[in-house]
Each structure stands twice: as C-alpha cells, then as structure tokens.
C-alpha cells in the first residue's frame, strides 16, 4: 500500500507526498527547510561556528589545558607558544583556558537574552497588532519610549542601578532589546490580522488568545527568529562592551569583554592579551550573522 518512491528510506519517509501523521508532516517540513539550509555554504559555516561554541562551552573543563583562575606571576605575559598556545595574561593565567571557559558566559548571556527579550517583544507586538485601537496605541507608545533611549546608555543606567554583574548586564540587554522585536511582531501581525484565515478562525468561535497563540504567533516567529539570530552579534558585543567598561562580568570571571579591558594597557607590547578574546568575539559574532542570513533564506517567505 505504501508505494514509496525512495524504497522506504528515511528521506523518502520525510519527503512523502502523503504524510500519515502529524509528526511526519511536521518533520517533513523541517527536513525540507534543512535541505534548503544545507545548500547555503556560508550558513553552514555559521552553524558550525555556533555549534562549535556550544561544544566549547559544554566541554570547557576537559578542553582547557589549565585552570582559568590559576594565577602564576612567574609566568605572566608569555607570548603564544607551545606551552601556552594563546599566551598568558598579566596574572600568568592561560588565555586559551580563559577563552574556553569564557564561552560559557557568552552562551549564558545569549541564552538568557534569547528566552526573555524576543518572547516579551512577541507577546507585546502580537497583542498590540491584533487588538489595535487603544491597546495598540498604549503599548506602542511604551515601545516608542523604550526605543528612544540609546541602547548602551540605558543598559549603563540599569547596570549602575542594579549593581555591576553578569545578571545585571543580561537584564539590561533584555530590557533594551525587546522594543525592536515588538515592532517586528506588530508589523507582521498587522499584515495578517485581516486575512481570511484569521476571520475564519474568528467565525469558528476561537478566542483571541487562541487566535494569537495558534494563528498569529507561528507566522510572526520566523521573521523574529531571523532577527534574533542577526542581533546575537550585537548582544554579544553589548555584553562585551559592558564587560569592557567594568559594568558586566566582574573579575576574575573570564568574560571576553572584560579580558579585552584587562589587556588594554599591554596592547602595544603584549598584543595577544587583548587580541585573542577579541578574535573570539569576532568569530562568534560572524558565526551568528552567517547563521541568521541562512535562516532568513529558509524561513522568510518574502525573500524566496
């Protein structure tokens, strides 16, 4: 009965013209998206970098050749070489080990910002766009006010109010980045709120919550995912900037921005102290940008 052109292989099951279950239909769609994604070489490079970052963070204690907090003043400011691949810093700590452990902090910041700001923005934007009227006016004026603040300055103000620390940096970044997501979600919602399939859902007696969660959010989320991925680089840079200013992660945490700040005074003679974490930030930001571009090609129907 199951006349499968690919002879029952996994790919054949995934691309089947007549899926037999909800799961098969969903997985098939994911698989088609994945096929489109793999055709984009740069996006795959970005994905490799991001996966590399995740692996680095997960395996940091086993990958790092030294303890990232172990000071050895006898071995300070050693240039990159066989014993210390990326050199040592002013306290004799191994920079490679610190960068490897620092990836955990970077990922921690990225993960926490990702689960807060876009979700808050999505909720505010879709509610605002769907209901319109005074709800829209009120929510969008709040968004306008939040957008009008310079991002880094507002983050600085929050950090100084909450006290320096990595959690304060995350809260500050999340609070300053949700308005952009709210705007995107609202714009997407406005384009679909009068479409026939939303009217049809209303005619079935669906509640507003059901329509927003089940019908509006799935259509807004792909452009939001793309935007979040592209913003990741900015988030990492803002976190590093706060660390550099001494307002984010505090010493002796191996946060990359704070490491650059520590290497600032040696930048002319011992260039590697500031450069190595800088290269790490650069590579990870680039990875997220490439991944975001690739995701946009797959997810954004308008660019197809």
């Amino acid at each position, binding site marked *: 009965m199951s006349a499968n052109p690919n002879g029952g292989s996994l790919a054949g099951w995934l691309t089947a*013209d*007549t*899926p*037999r*279950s*909800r799961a*098969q*239909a969903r997985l098939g*769609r994911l698989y088609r998206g994945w096929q489109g994604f793999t055709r984009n070489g740069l996006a795959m490079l970005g994905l490799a970098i991001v996966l590399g970052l995740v692996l680095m963070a997960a395996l940091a204690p086993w990958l790092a050749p030294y303890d990232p907090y172990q000071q050895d003043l006898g071995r300070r400011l050693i240039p990159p070489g066989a014993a210390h691949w990326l050199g040592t810093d002013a306290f004799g700590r191994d920079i490679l080990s610190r960068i490897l452990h620092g990836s955990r902090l970077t990922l921690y910041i990225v993960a926490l910002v990702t689960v807060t700001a876009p979700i808050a923005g999505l909720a505010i934007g879709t509610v605002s766009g769907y209901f319109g009227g005074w709800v829209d006016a009120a929510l969008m004026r709040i968004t306008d006010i939040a957008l009008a603040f310079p991002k880094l300055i507002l983050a600085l103000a929050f950090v100084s109010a909450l006290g320096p620390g990595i959690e304060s940096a995350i809260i500050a970044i999340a609070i300053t980045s949700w308005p952009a997501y709210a705007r995107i979600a609202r714009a997407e919602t406005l384009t679909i709120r009068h*479409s*026939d*399939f939303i*009217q*049809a*859902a*209303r*005619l*079935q*007696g*669906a*509640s507003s919550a*059901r329509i927003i969660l*089940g*019908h509006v959010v*799935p*259509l807004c989320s792909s452009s939001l995912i793309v935007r979040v991925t592209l913003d990741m680089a900015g988030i990492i840079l803002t976190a590093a900037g706060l660390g550099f200013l001494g307002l984010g992660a505090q010493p002796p945490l191996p946060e990359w921005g704070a490491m650059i700040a520590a290497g600032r005074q040696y930048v002319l003679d011992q260039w590697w102290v500031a450069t190595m974490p800088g290269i790490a930030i650069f590579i990870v930001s680039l990875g997220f940008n490439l991944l975001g571009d690739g995701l946009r090609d797959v997810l954004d129907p308008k660019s197809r």
Partner: protein
Amino acid sequence: MTGDPMIEVRDLRVSFGEVAAVQGVSFRVEAGESFGLVGESGSGKSTVLRALAGLNPDWTGELRVEGRAQGRRRDKGFFKSCQMVFQDPYGSLHPRHTIDRILAEPVAIHRMGDADARIERALAEVGLGSQFRYRYPHQLSGGQRQRVAIARALILEPNILLLDEPTSALDVSVQAEILNLLTRLRAERGLTYVLVSHNLAVVAHMCGRLAVMNRGRLVEELDAEALRRGEAREDYTRQLLRASRGYDRAAAEAFRDFA
C-alpha cells in the same frame, strides 16, 4: 420549523466612515431555503454577508438568526449553527497548518470530541481522501482547498452556510464540481444557504430565490424561475441579465448607470 424564518434581516445599514455601503436592506430566508444575493462589485452584497456573520461590527438594524436577535458580538452557539465559506481558498486556510489541524481546531473550540473520526468523515464528505489529511494547503489545488474550507465549515454541523462567491476564484472546470458538491451537501443535510455572487448563472443554478442589489440597496427580489424566464420587473435587473449573457455592442450602448 414553522413561524420563525431561519434568517431575518431588517433595515440593515453598514457604513465605512463616510461611505454608506449598505443602506437599509431587508430580506428573510426560510429554513432549508437557498437564497442568492446578486449584484455587481461594490453593490454591498458581501458586506451584508459579513455583517450577518458577525465579521463587521459597525452595523445598525435588526438581524435575527434562528429566531434569536443578534448583537455585535456573537456567542459560540451562533458560530456552531452558522458558518461561512470564503471567496479565496488561497487566503482562507492558514499556510502553516496542516489540513488535519485546520479541521481539528473547530472541533476543539466547541469541545465536540471524537476529533479523529469527525475529520475523516468531513474529508470524505467533501470528496477528499485521507491522504490529504496531513498535507499543507500549499500542496493542494484551488478546488481541493475550497473543499477543505467547506469541510471546515461543515464539521461544526451548522444549519446555515454563508457562501461568499465560493467559486469565483476557481477554474471554470472546478467551479461546477464545487457547486455540485454544495448542492449535494444541502440536499443531504437540509442546510440553509445564503449565496453571494456576481454570477447570475451560478445563482440561478444554486438558489430558489434571489435578491438583486445595487449601490447598497435591494433593487428587487425574484425567484429563480422568473430569472430563468427573464421576467425581471426592474430595469436594473434586466440590464444585469443582459450583461450576464455576454458582451454585445447593443447592450454596451444601452448601458445606463442606476444611481
């Protein structure tokens, strides 16, 4: 079902800002009847239907469905007994939902239970096999999509089906299939139809009685027999009839603007 008509519209007025789209329309539709609303683009026929369905809250007048007066907001019971099929099957199905999800949603909203069997039955009734169940709308043709839209409307087992130009976005060859499907479903389930169309042939085929609209007003009501014999009382209806037979120079020269 004696006494109360299925649908009663009295002095319905709808305006969009300055524009009075519907200016005092009244009609009634008996249970089991198929009623047509005909008119050219902008005559207000779709607006009447949308006000009836509760999609347009800015109306005045009186709307009674199954004997109950309807306000601006409708309750779940209304949606259970009155469903609508939209004109464009490319826009009326959610692009990210499988057919299964599209049909499961109304069952879940009204807590009807037994979703699996209901979905299978609904698909079979509109002539779609179960192989369509887990497909996405973009994998279906226009006619198949419109069948899904009809299945979605009928899965709630309504008494009334509002049809907003259900075939005008489809190929001519598919139009007849959908119209025959609608005719069969009405006969099987004893449904009441309100069909909006600009196509007199479709209305004459589907409806027992029809009303002609122009510029937001009802021009005349007549039955399909009279329409087929060409016995229209009003000049506007006669002109519409003549235009629907196809283009000819005499008709174009005789054209009048009925304000």
